[in-house]
């Protein structure tokens, strides 16, 4: 097995599955840099609404929402080594559950959000039980098939407006603390809170023995089996958690855009999520956030310049994949390592 090139590569400690001593010096240092970079990043994210105009605040909300989705995808891709093409479906489940609950049934949004997250967890876990028995291309195809199935259901359901979808979906009611989420800056902070909670949970998961087993599965599933781990339930639960985060992203998305239609569940959407992870760096904990930011901002910037922006966009992807080993996060990590800067800065 290849040894990690730098200690800043989160979760690449596949070799130490059996090591449970959290206080070994390297792990402790790693943990400290992680906390520091997270804190610096968080301060930056808090500052954004005070620095830029309303449109860019709404773009920033979009980035955080996608970052929740892609961080979930990365639990499978980066940590467990499973490539799913069906995550847009779970985003769609969260989105539709929120839209139905709040817009059609009239429940309060906070309650509907909790329900949406639970529903996407349960559905994703169920689908995980069925699909993680397969590997590689078969796994990719079975998740794609499930994704298309959900898309078709959404398209056919008259109750939710079929292909037309639903609009005028309310945002969360924050009047208890005297705020109105219809304002973009307020809504941004709400998304930020959800983002922090989601990523903190995810961090707990990947740092736990459970997360170590996932990394072990990625590196060598047969060895894990030989060590006596039954890998199947681990993979299924990882799939469920990853789907739950996608559901949260979907729930936030409908509130962000006041709107949902089956378009949110297309396989292209799942593909975009994978691209974001790969561009950002699937080996780094914050890689998906960097990828989402790069994706949304590059698209916004390029589409302002030219209508044929997809061509340049494609070119950019090729360059990133070809030359940025380990995505943007990996690139930053190498720069810091070469200049002797603090390891782990790539996290943010």
């Amino acid at each position: 097995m290849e040894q990690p090139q730098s200690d800043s590569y989160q979760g690449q400690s596949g070799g130490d599955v059996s090591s449970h001593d959290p206080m070994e010096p390297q792990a402790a240092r790693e943990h400290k840099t992680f906390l520091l970079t997270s804190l610096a990043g968080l301060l930056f994210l808090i500052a954004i609404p005070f620095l830029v105009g309303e449109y860019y605040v709404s773009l920033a909300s979009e980035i955080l929402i996608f970052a929740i989705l892609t961080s979930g995808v990365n639990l499978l891709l980066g940590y467990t080594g499973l490539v799913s093409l069906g995550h847009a479906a779970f985003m769609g489940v969260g989105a539709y559950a929120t839209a139905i609950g709040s817009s059609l049934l009239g429940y309060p949004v906070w309650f509907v959000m909790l329900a949406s997250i639970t529903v996407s967890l349960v559905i994703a876990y169920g689908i995980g039980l069925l699909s993680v028995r397969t590997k590689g291309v078969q796994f990719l195809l079975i998740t794609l098939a499930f994704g298309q199935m959900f898309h078709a259901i959404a398209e056919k359901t008259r109750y939710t407006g079929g292909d037309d979808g639903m609009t005028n979906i309310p945002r969360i009611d924050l009047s208890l603390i005297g705020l109105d989420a219809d304002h973009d800056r307020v809504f941004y902070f709400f998304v930020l809170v959800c983002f922090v909670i989601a990523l903190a949970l995810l961090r707990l998961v990947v740092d736990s023995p459970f997360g170590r087993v996932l990394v072990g599965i990625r590196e060598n599933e047969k060895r894990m089996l030989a060590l006596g781990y039954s890998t199947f339930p681990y993979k299924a639960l990882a799939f469920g958690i990853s789907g739950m985060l996608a559901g949260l992203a979907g729930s936030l998305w409908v509130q962000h855009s006041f709107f949902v239609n089956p378009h949110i569940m297309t396989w292209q959407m799942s593909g975009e999520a994978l691209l974001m992870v790969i561009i950002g760096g699937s080996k780094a904990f914050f890689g998906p956030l960097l990828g989402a930011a790069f994706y949304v901002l590059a698209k916004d910037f390029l589409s302002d310049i030219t209508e044929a922006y997809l061509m340049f966009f494609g070119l950019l992807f090729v360059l990133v994949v070809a030359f940025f080993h380990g995505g943007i996060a990996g690139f930053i990590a190498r720069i810091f390592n070469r200049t002797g800067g603090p390891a782990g800065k790539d996290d943010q």
Partner: protein
Amino acid sequence: MKQTNKFTSLVAGVGLFAAASTPAFAQDTVKVGLLTDFSGVFAQLAKDVEDAWMLAYDERDGMVAGHKIEIIKEDSENSPQVGVQKANKLIKSDDVAIFGGVISSGVGIALAGVADKEKVPFVAGFAIADPLTGKFCSPYVARTSFSANALQAGTGAYWANKGIKTAVFMGPDYAAGQAMLAGFKNGFEAAGGEVVLEELTPFGKTKDWGPSLLKAQQTGADMIYTFYAGSEAVQVVKQHAAFGMQESMPLRGAMWIYDEALWDAMGGVQMNAIHVTNYTNALDTEASERFEKAFMDKYGRLPVASNAMGYTNAVAIFDALEDAIEANGGELPEDGAAIIDALSALKLDNDPRGPVHFNDDHNAMQEELYMVQIVEGEDGKPTHKLIDTLPYGEDLPGCEMQ
């Protein structure tokens, strides 16, 4: 951050011309968003709409009520997500007074939600889904094209009154296809006809219409009424001809199935086909002749239905801005709903489609629809011949404006 002052090259040229021909003192500009599906399956329609917008812009020298118009173009890519993001940009970064365009119904409905929440007026240029001005109607939303039901119910009634007793409906199985079916059925059955078979084919996945055509043939109905567009339309028309059904069970529909852009691909089998449309360049009213000439002068070709739709869209937006600004003492009104109110009060008597006005749901209504036949023109190329006019249908109810 980058504040885009975004004239594309065409607008820039036009803008320079307009600036040269207007007094040289500084005026406030009024920003108008043209948000439409420049890429994706509706690219051609979007280009048609854009061309018509630029014509309407030229015709008033880029001015509205003493203010200079600045058109900011954005591509919604036929994706509601992208559309919402671009609408956010137009509203929050460019600070547009109003935005229009939009071909896709999916994008249109998404934008209706944004417009309603952000209280910035949105005027759909195509987006014919009934709910846009029905269930999703808003004081900030209007539409200058028509609703699926108005067009199809009018046509259904026409055919039933012409003695067609039974019809087969064929169309793609998604929201638009279902809406067209419902509209046609409403009109056709109310006037005494009967839809004997509803044949909905999987959207975007069907290549062989043989089984559907066979089923239709077995019903012995008087005609097939269809809604297909693009490559699906070409295949249906060709296979229908190959089945030798053109005489026994003619294939009829609206402008999409026999769209001018598809004639080359159909390779001649479209000749003599009859379809309904809400604009044809075969019209010879004063207003349509004028539009035809102006369009011909600018672009060197005849306008098509989507050009006319884009033209109504731009003219309605500009006229509404003019009225709203004048009513507000030369300034843009604070509340965008005033612009939509002004738009709703417009009587577009010189519209190339015929006189257009707006109903209480802010949806365009025109006086009549046109039944056209594709015939050989004087130059040997296929062209439209106007064979009849028919009354316009009604919108579906369902709008509860707050």
